[in-house]
């Protein structure tokens, strides 16, 4: 069952990702991106990472795609198709993509990279629950970074107003 779901979600995710790159119109690409984000959320749930799945839907599928669409409307659309891409850039991009794919494949199948498991192993997370585990760590050990995140958001708020509001 999980394998079947994984295959379905993964295939849709790859198709959607290809759609983002290949779409002639940027708005279509943004919608493909939305589809991609949603399937990724499904994959995260299969990996037992509920918090990331929820963040994926609320922040990425919800807010980021909206921002992308707004930005597309802010730039004058219609001109987007008239970029003259130099052919060698495309060759170079394909080369880099193949190289990257090769690296990932090499690492995945040979296992040359070995990390150190942290404190939270899959078993432990299954025991306490994913969101609970994050909550407990975030609000105790990572208290300072958590509070700093609110300062960071505040900087973003002030910055957005300073740069985009007509009259200050």
């Amino acid at each position, binding site marked *: 069952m999980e394998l079947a779901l994984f295959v379905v979600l993964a295939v849709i995710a790859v198709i959607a990702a290809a759609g983002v790159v290949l779409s002639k119109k940027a708005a279509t690409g943004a919608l493909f991106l939305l589809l991609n984000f949603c399937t990724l959320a499904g994959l995260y749930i299969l990996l037992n990472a509920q918090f990331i799945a929820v963040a994926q839907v609320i922040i990425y599928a919800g807010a980021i795609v909206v921002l992308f669409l707004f930005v597309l409307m802010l730039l004058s659309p219609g001109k987007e198709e008239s970029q003259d891409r130099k052919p060698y850039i495309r060759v170079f991009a394909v080369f880099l993509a193949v190289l990257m794919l090769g690296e990932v494949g090499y690492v995945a199948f040979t296992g040359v*990279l070995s990390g150190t498991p942290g404190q939270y192993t899959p078993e432990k997370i299954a025991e306490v629950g994913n969101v609970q585990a994050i909550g407990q760590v975030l609000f105790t*050990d*990572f208290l300072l970074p958590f509070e700093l995140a609110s300062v960071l958001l505040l900087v973003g708020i002030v910055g957005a107003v300073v740069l985009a509001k007509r009259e200050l």
Partner: protein
Amino acid sequence: MNISSLNLTAIAPQIIIIITALVVLLAELFTGRKSLLAYLSLLGIIVAAIASWYIWNGTEQRLFAVPMFQTMAVADGYSLFLNLVFLVTAALSVLASINYLVRERINHGEYYALLLLATGGMMLMGSATDLMTVFLALEILSISLYVLAGFNRADLKSGESALKYFLLGAFASGFLLYGIALIYGATGTTNLAAIVDFLKGTGPMRGTYLFIGLGLLLVGFSFKIALVPFHMWTPDVYEGAPTSVTAFMSVGAKAAGFAALGRLLLYAFPTLLGDWVWALAVLSVLTMTLGNLTALAQTNVKRMLAYSSIAHAGYILIGLIAANEAGMAGVLFYLLAYAFMNVGAFAVVIAVGREGEPNLELSDYAGLGSRQPLLAAAMAVFMFSLAGVPPLAGFFGKLYIFSAAVQAGFVALAIIGVLNSVVSAFFYLRVIVYMYMQKPIVEARPVLAPPLALAIALAVLGTIGLGLLPTPFLTLAQQSIAMLFGA
């Protein structure tokens, strides 16, 4: 778990600065007199400095620890000395900004709020002992600076500066975060103390993960402190940003980057020294040489100072490469000296400038010695100090760093540094030649507003003071770094 176990006093200076920023932001909504906000900011900066002083005298090392002793930040000599550097930079920048903002018609309270938030981010970079804190502090600092760089919204160059800074800065943050993720993967922790323990346990192991992670981390930091070849954004950003912002970020952002990098490399990764030291040595030589050679060709003073600041990052890096106590103490001393002389030089640029900043060319400084002798004398002090002429602050900074490099066996690096200083003397002295030996093209006398004059006076005082009495400050710096090497 309760509040008293947090030991909030350890980050009291940072909290004070951030609360001041919030108050300034709220006060902005209710007051029309924006210069009041500048003085409010100065008050916060002074209180934060006093708090730092109290912590310094209190205990040797206070930890911002939450239960399970996962330390996220620390108040030790290192962070407190750096607080001094950041607070000096912020105070001088605020003083230099007051009339500049009015002149450029961008006198909004948000400026001071963002400047304080950036200062808070810098101070947190100095005290961060966890990669998560490093990252968040760096982002608070960087995003504030992106916005400040574009603060003059009517000026296209300012917008270009903000956009370029943002795009490349975000790119660098991506590298940094990726590096942090790989280091976490390799060691199973983001905490510096835990990484130290882990590396002790494994001995001289060279995990591929750790290696790549550290490399990405170095690339990210190289962008942020503008090392060649990651410096391309610097001249345009520094030239386009409002001058007071350039003054602030050319010192503050750089010092913050060195602060975090120093603690990371010397405290957490000394066992990998053999790997990162050569990478940094190459970067340092490239940075010094290219920065100075390109500065030679500049006729725009602001742009020349931008290239000069690239070159100075190269000198400071030598202290890190030496990786001994003398080198690190030299880095701290240099950063303090740099805060005075560089902000001072930009303050003079502000004083000579006019609305819209049309006169930033070298020729605009012609005859300044007769038009405004005091201002020209101050500029001469800053230029001599930047060039490393004794007995000024810049000279002793270079002296300490280069001699530390010789001690550590990097004689060639020290020689390249000295040669570069000789090259740099040419373009610093050119400004002095223009000021004193050229006939003025315009007869206008720049009018000095009192706060700006105070900023320049303080900077001169600091530059000369550090030069005439370097020993107490060097001792202070030497005491500050004990924690880095004590572990």
